[in-house]
């Protein structure tokens, strides 16, 4: 089966920097790295939605992008929908201490933060390409 879309769900956590990075990495995938090939959904809607949102990971192989080691997105996808096709933990990429720093407004992002976003998006992209290659 050749896939036309791959799902990516970020935690977008509000309590730490990792959440901000997870969110921006998914947006980077959508807009720059894999435009038109990513399907996403808000994590709260995925869990609380009543319109079949939980079927998301059954329709699409889905990658979870989590901001901290609690891995809310991964756990929720696997609890309510299907096993994830891949997962990214921002804390493993940028270090747990940095990931747990205060969340940032997008207007306060530095080049260093944007480098974290790039690294997280690159890792997500790697998993994305592996899933795609397996589907051909």
């Amino acid at each position, binding site marked *: 089966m050749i896939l036309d879309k791959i799902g990516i769900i*970020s*935690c*977008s*956590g*509000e*309590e*730490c920097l990792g*959440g901000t990075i997870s*969110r*921006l990495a*998914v*947006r*980077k995938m959508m*807009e720059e790295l894999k435009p038109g090939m990513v399907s*996403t*959904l*808000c*994590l*709260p*809607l995925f*869990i*609380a*939605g009543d319109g079949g949102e939980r079927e998301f990971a059954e329709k699409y192989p889905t990658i979870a992008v989590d901001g901290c080691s*609690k891995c*809310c*997105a991964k*756990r*929720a996808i696997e609890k309510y929908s299907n096993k994830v096709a891949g997962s990214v933990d921002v804390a493993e990429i940028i270090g747990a201490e940095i990931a747990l720093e*205060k*969340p*940032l*407004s*997008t*207007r306060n992002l530095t080049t260093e933060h944007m480098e974290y976003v790039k690294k997280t998006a690159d890792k997500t992209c790697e998993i994305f390409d592996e899933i795609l290659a397996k589907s051909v």
Partner: protein
Amino acid sequence: MSKIKVIPCSGIGKVFGLLARESALMVTQEKCPDDTETLCLAHVVTGDNEVVEKIKGETCITMDGCAKYCSKKSVEETGGIVVKSHKVPDFMKAHRGEEHGTGTYLTEDGWKYAEELAEIMVEEVKEIKAGVN
């Protein structure tokens, strides 16, 4: 009184989620850091014990990006007391025709709108505090 919880939805698909997130960060980090705090909605919806304990019976303000009201519903289900619930598009009337950005960034008009949303919540924080003290 413990800090008032200000919880946005942080929706990822459209600019409304980012407006909710940025306005909540303005309130909790810049405008009322001593009286408010935010909690991770992902922790709330997954039932993280630590966050559930923090939210149960506590005064909350929610800012949602769409009519699904994920933040309001999830906070209520977790036992938080939502005293004020908002939806970003409800305040759009005075901003028709403006471009506010995307789920990734806000334009100058977007930041002004986020500021306005934050000020609405700041006034509510003051009212809540006045009612208690």
